[in-house]
């Protein structure tokens, strides 16, 4: 009854007669090379779970403790593996619980396919039990979505979903499948999608634009590269390196571009954004040519647009035409995958020397080092600082680890101070700033890269938003190293209250549980660290213990993240300390 395709795909069915919609879903996933799912069962998706039962040798399923955990885990998996993350949930609340993750994946361009069950098609629109208009709800936060009401639609819809999620600028896609379509039988035939008439994932490259850009770069005296996740998505790390090395151009990164260029690269001048490094901040408003590569001029990067890089010619390389001139008006826009456009641009630019310009960055770094970095990394008194914990993590992991963060002060400290040798080594919620993202995302990251250490840096607020995923870590034996920066505060909000709201700490103090005891309840060993002297040994103990581990570190309660550009201010108004 079954036919198989020849050659490499011998064990994957591309055709099968008289199978159920649910089986067709499993075969569709296999045809797309999916071997892991993150999900949570429920009434309207039960037929798919039943079909999955027969295929657990080919597709592993990670049972999370909440659908939000499932999608964040899939995001962590997608970001580290470069593959599409797949999530399964039931109708109604199961589907609505995915929405935060979908919005997060949309704004951070993460390829995700969500499969949700739906009530049987005759019940659609009748306010049936666990019925919600998931397609309607997810419309503004998905790249594409579709409701399947007939089994026959499954192969084409799945092929389209994977093609759309992964191609061009990636994003989340949702397929909502009624229960009757999961049960119905039909003749299955799978064909991968490679073309849609109305969808152009990669715009045509215009050589003349690259020529124009090269001319401007060749004439530049003070060029600055700012790059984002486009480098990672396009797998253009090597191309970026060759470009900046040939042009001798300093390069700064957005939070999502982190790890695309090794931390120790001489042209790596640090992080952009509200809490980025001092040099790229002030130099953005001094450079003569700003070359933005695979980034979208987020307001956290630009701050006040009216005063942002007004003196500079702006070159913008991006795959998404809608990003051009959206926030910052460009002098030259180079559309296309940076994997293709960067090498052409590199060929067209002259080898150059900008050493004295680069020196200006080094001078600015020295100021930041003395005022901010040194006291943060090597505090002489007071409580443990987050940066010193990160410094010890760098030293002990030899900069080999994957970093996953939650959202808040610890996230900014981690992205500022964690060091990277390898690309694709960070998972963080950039655009949406989703507290509770870290713990489940670290599960996905570890599954994507089981041999590397995965260090989750998380705050006491964010950890408690998805703490139930310790259950997933326990059940699926995920060896994540959890470093809890515990200051008994919602630290970032508290910092703003201190700086801009007269220290009126409204609802930011947290009375916390004993986190080590909670971990213990999930069979996860842990340690509490309250003194600087204990830190080293505790970190070493964490890495020498096989499997997951929770390190609860009592850090300085009212520590602040600097530098800082207050929201809406000009990037020239950067604060290096409370006193400015």
């Amino acid at each position, binding site marked *: 009854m079954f036919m198989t395709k020849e050659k490499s795909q011998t064990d994957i069915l591309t055709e099968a007669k008289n199978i159920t919609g649910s089986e067709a879903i499993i075969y569709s996933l296999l045809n797309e090379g999916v071997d892991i799912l993150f999900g949570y069962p429920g009434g309207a998706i039960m037929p798919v779970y039943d079909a999955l039962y027969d295929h657990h040798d080919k597709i592993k399923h990670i049972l999370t403790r909440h659908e939000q955990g499932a999608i964040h885990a899939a995001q962590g998996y997608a970001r580290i593996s470069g593959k599409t993350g797949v999530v399964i949930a039931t109708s109604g609340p199961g589907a609505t619980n995915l929405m935060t993750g979908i919005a997060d994946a949309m704004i951070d361009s993460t390829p995700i396919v969500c499969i949700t069950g739906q009530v049987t098609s005759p019940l659609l629109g009748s306010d049936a039990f666990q019925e919600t208009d998931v397609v309607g709800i997810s*419309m503004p936060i998905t790249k594409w979505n579709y409701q399947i009401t007939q089994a026959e639609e499954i192969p084409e819809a799945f092929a389209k979903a994977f093609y759309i999620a992964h191609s061009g600028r990636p994003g989340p896609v949702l397929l909502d499948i009624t229960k009757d379509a999961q049960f119905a039988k039909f003749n299955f035939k799978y064909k991968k999608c490679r073309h849609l008439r109305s969808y152009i994932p990669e715009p045509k490259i215009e050589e003349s634009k690259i020529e124009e850009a090269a001319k401007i770069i060749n004439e530049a005296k003070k060029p600055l590269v700012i790059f984002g996740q486009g480098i990672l998505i396009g797998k253009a790390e090597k191309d970026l390196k060759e470009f900046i090395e040939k042009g001798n151009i300093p390069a700064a990164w957005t939070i999502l571009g982190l790890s695309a260029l090794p931390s120790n690269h001489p042209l790596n001048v640090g992080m952009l954004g509200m809490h980025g490094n001092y040099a790229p901040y002030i130099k953005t408003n001094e450079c003569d040519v700003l070359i933005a590569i695979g980034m979208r001029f987020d307001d956290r990067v630009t701050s006040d647009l009216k005063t942002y890089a007004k003196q500079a010619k702006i070159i913008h390389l991006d795959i998404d035409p809608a990003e051009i001139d959206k926030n910052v008006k460009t002098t030259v826009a180079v559309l296309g995958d940076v994997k293709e456009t960067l090498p052409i641009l590199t060929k067209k630019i002259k080898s150059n020397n900008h050493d004295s310009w680069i020196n200006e960055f080094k001078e600015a770094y020295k100021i930041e080092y003395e005022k901010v970095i040194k006291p943060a990394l090597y505090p002489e008194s007071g409580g443990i600082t987050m940066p010193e914990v990160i410094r010890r993590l760098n030293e002990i992991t030899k900069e080999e680890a994957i970093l996953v963060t939650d959202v808040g002060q610890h996230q900014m400290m981690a992205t500022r101070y964690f060091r990277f040798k390898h690309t694709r080594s960070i998972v963080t919620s950039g655009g949406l700033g989703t507290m509770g993202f870290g713990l489940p995302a670290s599960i996905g990251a570890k599954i994507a890269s089981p041999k590397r250490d995965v260090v989750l840096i998380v705050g006491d607020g964010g950890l408690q938003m998805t703490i139930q995923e310790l259950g997933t870590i326990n059940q699926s034996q995920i060896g994540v190293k959890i470093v809890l920066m515990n200051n008994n505060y919602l630290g970032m909000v508290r910092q703003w209250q201190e700086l801009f709201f007269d220290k009126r700490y409204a609802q930011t103090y947290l009375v916390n549980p004993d986190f080590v005891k909670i971990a213990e309840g999930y069979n996860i060993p842990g340690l509490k660290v309250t003194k600087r002297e204990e830190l080293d040994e505790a970190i070493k103990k964490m890495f020498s213990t096989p499997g997951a581990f929770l390190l609860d570190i009592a850090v300085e309660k009212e520590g602040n993240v600097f530098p800082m550009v207050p929201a809406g201010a000009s990037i020239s108004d950067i604060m290096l300390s409370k006193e400015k």
Partner: protein
Amino acid sequence: MTEEFTISIFSENRIGLLNRITIIFTRRKLNIESLTVSESAIHGIHKFTIVVNSTEDKIKAVTKQIEKLVEVLKAYYYRNEDIVHEEIALYKVPTEALMNSNKIEELVRKHNARILEVTPTYTVIEKTGHQAETNALFKALNEFKVLQFTRSGRIAITKDNVEFLSNFIKEREKHKESLNLN
């Protein structure tokens, strides 16, 4: 500066696409002045005509966001001088008014309108034109108490010499062939 723009969108005929398009406006708090949807000259391709008041920068950004939608083939925006546009209006007036005066006949002639239906109680008049023109007739007819008035959204045709859409579809067909599918 705020101006009136007409956005033309060519898309696949898919459930929910209208919603996806309008969300792009509502998210930016842009009010849609008029919206018309129907099948275009090319079978299977639907055309949306949307009239919005805003600045060119905003309209440009919105048009790009619309074109980014997976099932949208092309989106263009135009100023009024770039297009020939038309709306259709229907007016229901009491027949009694028609019988008692020759003013209505005069109005119909003057405004280039036509009478669609006459019953003992009411008469239906139709006029096509720009909004100002259909409004002018409404004002004139309302002397006789218009019972009902309704106006369609705008439809528009470009003054371009090049038919961008058919060229686009040809290009996409070529691309498909180059992939050697099947």
